[in-house]
């Protein structure tokens, strides 16, 4: 007896049939797609904006704060003991990978701020008298505090070695004392001792962060000799981007190997954790919305495909009569719902990406989009379509050809 072959349906034929089926009712297909489009769009916008905003926040945070580490040295009750952090300990710190600059400062508490006077150069009888903090520092302070010298210069190792009577004024201190022109070599009196003003700092985010705008900065040796400024009270460190956490752990040991536990380190939170936190907050809010939209979309596809199966009963009977197996019928309806989902996913992903770019342009952000998201969203749409089409496809496949031919025209 001859054995007949199994019926076959090529992949290209299957997709041709699916596309023809989908294209035969364009308005219905578009309406069916809407749920998937809305769901995928919401998901892409959610994830894209979360990533963009997280990156934006972390980027700002990185630029200003994430490279700053401050080591606070507690006050010493026993003045006979060697200092917890010595002025000459900085080279141990600057040798560490990731340290761009470091400076030690000795800042008295607020009660012992110095009395600072300045004579008006044009009207010497006018005296400006202020109580301002006198701070002894090492030479690298502008770099370590992310500050800049607006006028003049900062003191150097030579000034420190000679204990020169020079000062650099913070921007607000210079304004308060009426020091505007360094050309004449203006002098200020700190606790009645004359000092030459050699520079004025610019007010920056770094100078504000470290309260340098109102300070009168002197070489630490001069401060020790003439203003009773003692051992370092803090060490300011500027790190490479991303190195702050590591330096925060290593700095106390480098500065005070024997007593590093007593040092207090102020370091920024991990930018990656911050970014992750921001993304998580945004994600958890809107991913739920996106998923709900997708489920609604999937239910829409299921409903419409079920109606389509009922309407095309005659076609199902015809296909069975022409040699289509149950598997072919199921495959065709699955392919149709998959195509609907895939196109919905492509349109949704495109709309989502455009929306992320538009929002980013509006906010002057740099849009950040994961490529896997752009590629995965259409695939997710196709999966939603396939899952949604599963039940209608099985219903279609279970139809008896005789019944299908009889009930459909």
């Amino acid at each position, binding site marked *: 007896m001859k054995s*007949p072959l199994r019926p*076959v349906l090529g992949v290209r034929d299957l997709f041709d049939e699916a596309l023809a089926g989908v294209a035969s009712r364009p308005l219905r297909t578009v309406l069916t797609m809407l749920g998937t489009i809305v769901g995928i769009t919401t998901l892409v916008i959610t994830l894209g904006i979360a990533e963009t905003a997280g990156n934006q926040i972390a980027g700002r945070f990185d630029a200003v704060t994430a490279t700053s580490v401050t080591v606070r040295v507690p006050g010493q009750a026993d003045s006979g003991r060697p200092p917890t952090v010595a002025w000459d300990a900085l080279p141990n710190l600057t040798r560490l990978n990731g340290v761009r600059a470091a400076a030690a400062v000795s800042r008295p508490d607020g009660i012992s701020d110095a009395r600072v006077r300045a004579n008006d150069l044009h009207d010497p009888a006018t005296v400006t008298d202020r109580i301002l903090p006198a701070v002894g520092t090492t030479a690298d302070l502008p770099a370590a505090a992310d500050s800049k010298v607006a006028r003049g210069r900062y003191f150097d190792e030579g000034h420190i070695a000679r204990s020169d009577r020079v000062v650099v004024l913070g921007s607000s201190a210079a304004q308060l004392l009426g020091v505007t022109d360094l050309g004449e070599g203006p002098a200020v009196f700190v606790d009645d001792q004359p000092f030459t003003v050699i520079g004025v700092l610019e007010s920056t985010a770094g100078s504000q962060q470290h309260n340098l705008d109102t300070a009168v900065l002197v070489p630490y040796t001069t401060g020790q000799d003439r203003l009773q400024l003692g051992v370092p009270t803090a060490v300011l460190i500027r790190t490479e981007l991303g190195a702050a956490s590591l330096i925060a752990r290593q700095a106390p040991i480098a500065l005070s190997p024997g007593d590093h536990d007593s040092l207090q380190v102020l370091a920024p939170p991990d930018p990656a954790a911050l970014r992750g936190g921001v993304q998580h907050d945004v994600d958890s809010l809107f991913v739920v919305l996106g998923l709900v939209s997708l489920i609604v979309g999937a239910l829409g596809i299921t409903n419409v495909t079920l109606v389509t199966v009922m309407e095309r009963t005659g076609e199902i009977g015809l*296909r069975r009569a022409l040699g289509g197996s149950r598997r072919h019928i199921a495959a065709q309806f699955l392919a149709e719902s998959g195509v609907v989902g895939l196109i919905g996913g492509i349109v949704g992903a495109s709309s989502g990406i455009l929306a992320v770019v538009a929002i980013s342009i509006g906010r002057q952000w740099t849009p950040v989009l994961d490529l896997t998201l752009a590629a995965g969203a259409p695939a997710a749409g196709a999966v939603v379509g396939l899952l949604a089409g599963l039940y209608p496809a099985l219903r279609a496949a279970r139809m008896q050809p005789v019944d299908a031919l009889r009930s459909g025209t």
Partner: protein
Amino acid sequence: MTPPVVELSDVGRVYDSDPPVHALRDVNLRVSTGDYLAVVGASGSGKSSLLNILGLLDRPDSGTYLLDGVDTTRLDDGQRTALRGSKIGFVFQSFHLLPYRSAAENVAMAELYRRGDRTQRARRAEATLDRVGLAHRVGFRPDRLSGGERQRVAIARALLGEPALLLCDEPTGNLDRANTEAVLDLFDDLKEQGVTLIVITHDDDVSRRAERRISIEDGRLSEESG
């Protein structure tokens, strides 16, 4: 010797209802290659049950059915589907054309589930449309065709791939007199070309054009002479 295209031996079909309905009783039928046969009978006589079994759309409860030498009662569902697709061409009363496909695409569907060259399919479909006199309607969708033309497209679809048996279920039931005549003339031509035809009908005018007339009543067949 060439085996008959159709050989039914003691075929019976009973529908499970209360009481059970004996749609076919001990049916014996031989149809040879090139036969043109009409099955006539009143409504409820068993015509559709016979058509469904002949078309491998249903299984008999008893007896054997050999189609082109293959014992179909021993085949599983997938094998019966493949045999149906390769050996039988169907023509239905309501045409069963896909409204969103052109005439040529509707005809080409007959080969969709068979192994074959995809690129040749369209060419063969057009040639078959030419064979039924519709070469000028290749790209037309069904809604732009007359009833007679639609049925000729359906006949072209049934003829594609040279099936062993053309099974027609009330093929002129939705046609006016002129189109009925045109379709019957086409059947005469196909008979001349050696196509094996079984036409199920309740119309005596249609059955009279056939070479053999089989009457069915209460599930039993009887062949009318001459």
